């Protein structure tokens, strides 16, 4: 097939080299350093030494199980909420958006144009003790007179859901947009009700989007610490908060490094369980 295929030789490697080298040195190698550090013992004043200190891992799990579990719970809940909230809208844009599709998609990603921290601070304002949300909930007696939203798990999950919502909505839209409308018509011609046609045709065909959106939302959500820091109380802290403070405030590097790996393992297990449930085909289908 022409010129490019006849000159396989060195060209692709020359094109790859700088970028791949960058990723190797500043992404892969650092993971090695992190693994090494996670098995060290000692402290910042007397230095750390590599001692195969697997105890770091057990101590991390023993002492911070609550934060690990909370991270997976909050991330899972926020992912589910994001899916339920954004699926109908993705559907609406894909099937009824017409020529406004691009503009509506722009609205979906609009939150990303506001600095992450600033939009989280905006939620702090919205959920604040004298804010209209709290006042409304108090007058509806959903919240007691002294009830608050800030510094609760509700606030943290609300923040995470909002902040990662576009990661869910966009893949959902892409997979729904690709569905051939004639398939749904065919189902209806064959006497499927609209509901049935949706459940048997549209929903299964949009599964790749559901899978991609779930992963794109869940993974960053599980490692997040900003929402818990700004919207929650110490009782709502996630493992990201612990890793952050161990690294940057307490300089307990081995503990923090081991927690980073446990977090990654936790995410991998969660993703694997999820993949089992929806089928690995969907997962690899969205991979690249």
């Amino acid at each position, binding site marked *: 097939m022409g010129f490019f295929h006849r000159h396989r030789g060195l060209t692709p490697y020359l094109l790859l080299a700088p970028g791949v080298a960058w990723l190797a040195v500043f992404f892969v190698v650092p993971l090695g350093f992190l693994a090494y550090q996670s098995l060290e013992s000692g402290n910042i004043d007397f230095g750390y030494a590599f001692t195969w200190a697997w105890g770091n891992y057990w101590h991390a799990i023993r002492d911070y199980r609550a934060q690990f579990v909370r991270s997976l719970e909050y991330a899972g809940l926020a992912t589910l909420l994001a899916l339920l909230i954004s699926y109908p809208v993705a559907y609406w844009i894909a099937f009824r958006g017409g020529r406004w599709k691009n503009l509506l998609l722009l609205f979906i990603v609009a939150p990303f144009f506001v*600095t992450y921290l600033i939009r989280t601070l905006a939620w702090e304002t919205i959920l604040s003790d004298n804010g209209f949300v709290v006042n409304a909930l108090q007058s509806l007696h959903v919240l007691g007179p002294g009830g608050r939203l800030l510094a609760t798990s509700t606030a943290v999950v609300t923040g995470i859901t909002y902040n990662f919502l576009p990661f869910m909505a966009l893949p959902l839209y892409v997979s729904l947009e690709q569905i051939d409308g004639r398939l749904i018509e065919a189902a209806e011609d064959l006497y499927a009700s609209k509901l049935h046609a949706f459940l048997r045709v549209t929903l299964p065909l949009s599964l790749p989007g559901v899978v991609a959106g779930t992963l794109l939302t869940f993974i960053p959500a599980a490692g997040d610490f900003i929402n818990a820091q700004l919207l929650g109380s110490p009782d709502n802290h996630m493992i990201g908060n612990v890793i952050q403070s161990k690294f940057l405030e307490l300089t307990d590097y081995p503990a923090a490094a081991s927690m980073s790996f446990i977090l990654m393992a936790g995410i991998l297990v969660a993703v694997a369980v999820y993949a089992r449930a929806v089928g690995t085909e969907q997962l690899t289908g969205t991979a690249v």
Partner: protein
Amino acid sequence: MSSIAVPRQRQRNVLAAVLGFLRYHVLTVYSLLFFAYLLLPIAIVVVFSFNHPTGKFNYTWQGFTWDNWRYWDGVPGIRSAIILSLEIALIASVIATALGTAIALALVRYGFRGRATTNILIFLPLSTPEIVLGASLLTLFLNLNVIFGFWTILIAHIMFCISFAVVTVKARLVGFDRHLEEAAMDLGANEWTTFRKVTLPLIAPAILAALLLCFAISIDDFVVTYFNSGSKITFPLFVWGAARIGAPPQVNVIGTAIFVVALAAMLGNILVQMQRSKRAS
């Protein structure tokens, strides 16, 4: 058909009609509510950039003022933080896009040994939590006694931008008509000339998109920067520090400004696309 099937059929039709009605109108109303929810925090950011807070907390509306916009750099440290963020975002997006475009070209155009591994290498940073990216880079720099500052931030930003650039350019290259290049070669152009005169202009929109995406991701990054900044302060780090003692309204001013610029860039892009598709049809 049996006599029972007919009413059931009718029932089903009624149900279908109701569901159809619901789908047409409730879905629209729901979607509008959704967009209100999505845009509410943005509106808050914009509105509170005009607030005149009496205390140090910019939480409740006190009164309208232009002062925050007039004295946008009236808070110590905010100007240098913005300049640093812009510098980093500019350099990181250019380098990451160059590296990423080269990788995308190699992946789409050539069959070579190690292609699958390269794909995985590109995919992994996208699926690793930011805190792990930041933490691992921190341990690298710590163990090599690298001094934290401008260069460590820049290195980090280029690292997490590369994958985004690759994905963006690759998407465009895949749907690319290779006959155009073959035609150029048949007319005697060499590989480099063909690349410059045919390939590059055709993928230019994707390269621009990658640049903008990398710029946006870089200027917004907090987590990885927080781990690798040393004593340097980018704009998101400034916001983080300010949030602990009550963020001044100037933070909202800059947030609004970034939002407006990004929105304008995206709107411009969409309008160009719309016009192009109109011309094509």
